């Protein structure tokens, strides 16, 4: 049996695990959902520079909830920390697409065998538009998919081939779920780590995506 986790525990575990490996000084772009929890789990002594689509560089927590002159891409008030700046969107997207963002963490509807990511639309149901997602996945140096292992309907979100429209083809470098870490090494998906209490054999059996098991697979407590 895989460990039973509440929604909050699962999401926190994913965010904490990703936060633990983001490099000090890295320029980071966070998507909506689980990625927004990451600032809560940044290890002491690590400083990340958060960048947003709408032109904030070195974003921090809001000082004034009423003031909408400084917001993140989702419309929530933020502040700019010392050493930060504002840019227009031609520049913010050049930063994203042009390889100036060290890592992005995005939610996922599906991730597949080839590292393709689907996270922006469900045909005939949800048509929000792709926003900046297609730009960041082609431009960020490292793309993390932060996702629950199974959908609320119980289907594995790590699939052989995405059935939903792609955000990017072959773009995902690391997948972190509540149960494991999967790394894309030269186009092959390797299970490199399981969370404490997870049986790797059982996880492989329940995962639709075909995974190679890393020779150095680790068990990590979250």
């Amino acid at each position: 049996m895989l460990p039973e986790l509440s929604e909050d525990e699962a999401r926190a575990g994913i965010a904490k695990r990703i936060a633990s490996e983001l490099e000090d000084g890295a320029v980071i772009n966070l998507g909506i959902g689980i990625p927004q929890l990451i600032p809560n789990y940044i290890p002491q002594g690590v400083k990340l520079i958060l960048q947003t689509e709408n032109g904030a560089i070195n974003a921090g927590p809001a000082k004034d909830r009423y003031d909408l002159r400084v917001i993140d891409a989702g419309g929530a008030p933020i502040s700019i920390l010392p050493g930060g700046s504002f840019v227009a969107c031609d520049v913010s997207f050049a930063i994203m697409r042009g390889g100036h963002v060290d890592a992005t963490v995005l939610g996922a509807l599906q991730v597949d065998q080839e590292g393709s990511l689907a996270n922006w639309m469900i045909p005939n149901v949800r048509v929000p538009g792709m926003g900046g997602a297609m730009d960041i996945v082609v431009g960020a140096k490292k793309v993390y998919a932060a996702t629950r292992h199974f959908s609320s309907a119980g289907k594995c979100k790590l699939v052989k081939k995405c059935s939903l429209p792609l955000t990017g083809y072959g773009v995902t470098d690391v997948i972190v779920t509540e149960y494991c870490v999967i790394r894309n090494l030269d186009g092959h998906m390797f299970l490199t780590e399981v969370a404490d209490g997870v049986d790797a054999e059982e996880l492989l059996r329940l995962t639709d995506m075909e995974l190679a098991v890393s020779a150095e697979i680790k068990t990590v407590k979250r």
Partner: protein
Amino acid sequence: MAKPFIKPIISPEEAVRKVREGTSLMLGGFNYGGVPYTLIDALFEAGTKDIDLICVDASHCNDITPEPVGVAKLIVGRRIRSMTASHIGLNKYAQEMLLRGEIKIDLIPMGTYVERIRAKGAGLGGFLTPTGVGTAYEKGHETVEADGRKYILERPLGADVAFIRAYRSDTAGNLIYYGTGRNFNPVIAMAADIVIAEVDEVLAAGDIDPDDVVTPGILVDALVLKGDNPYAART
């Protein structure tokens, strides 16, 4: 016709008369920030229909914010014939209209959206981007191989009229922005035949340091002072 050096400060009602049926209108703003709320309100009041809108998002009209905000008023009020946008996820009504086929909305990647506008303003015929390659978006777009990589060929995007929002202007129309209200405004200011800027205040020419100017006044036709829309007050 050359734009005047000293910009007229006009009423929002006069400004929106530049927009008629079939006008392509580009609006600045990203989510709540940098939106010309006063001009949008006046355009809504004018009742002008069949606008071809170019605006990155559809603002807010959803379960949390049921009253349409900003450009959502024009969409929900059915004043829009077509829309080029990137994200309409916070406007439930726009998504429903799109799913029912009641409005034409062309959804494009946001980096492509801004770069197409930049290309128009910079006099370029287009550009090559890796964004969207290998996705459904690629279909219907021309692709080009260059230096061993596949790109999508994108074309410029301009408009007849642009409404932008800045923080301060001087009388010569030089603009500075505040916070994340800058967003698409300086890019849009270069890509339309007529550019009207909504601002908090107008200073004397020379009172904005030329080093601080983001949008030079030569791009601006007229100024409108920010009104009392509650979101204008918060931005």
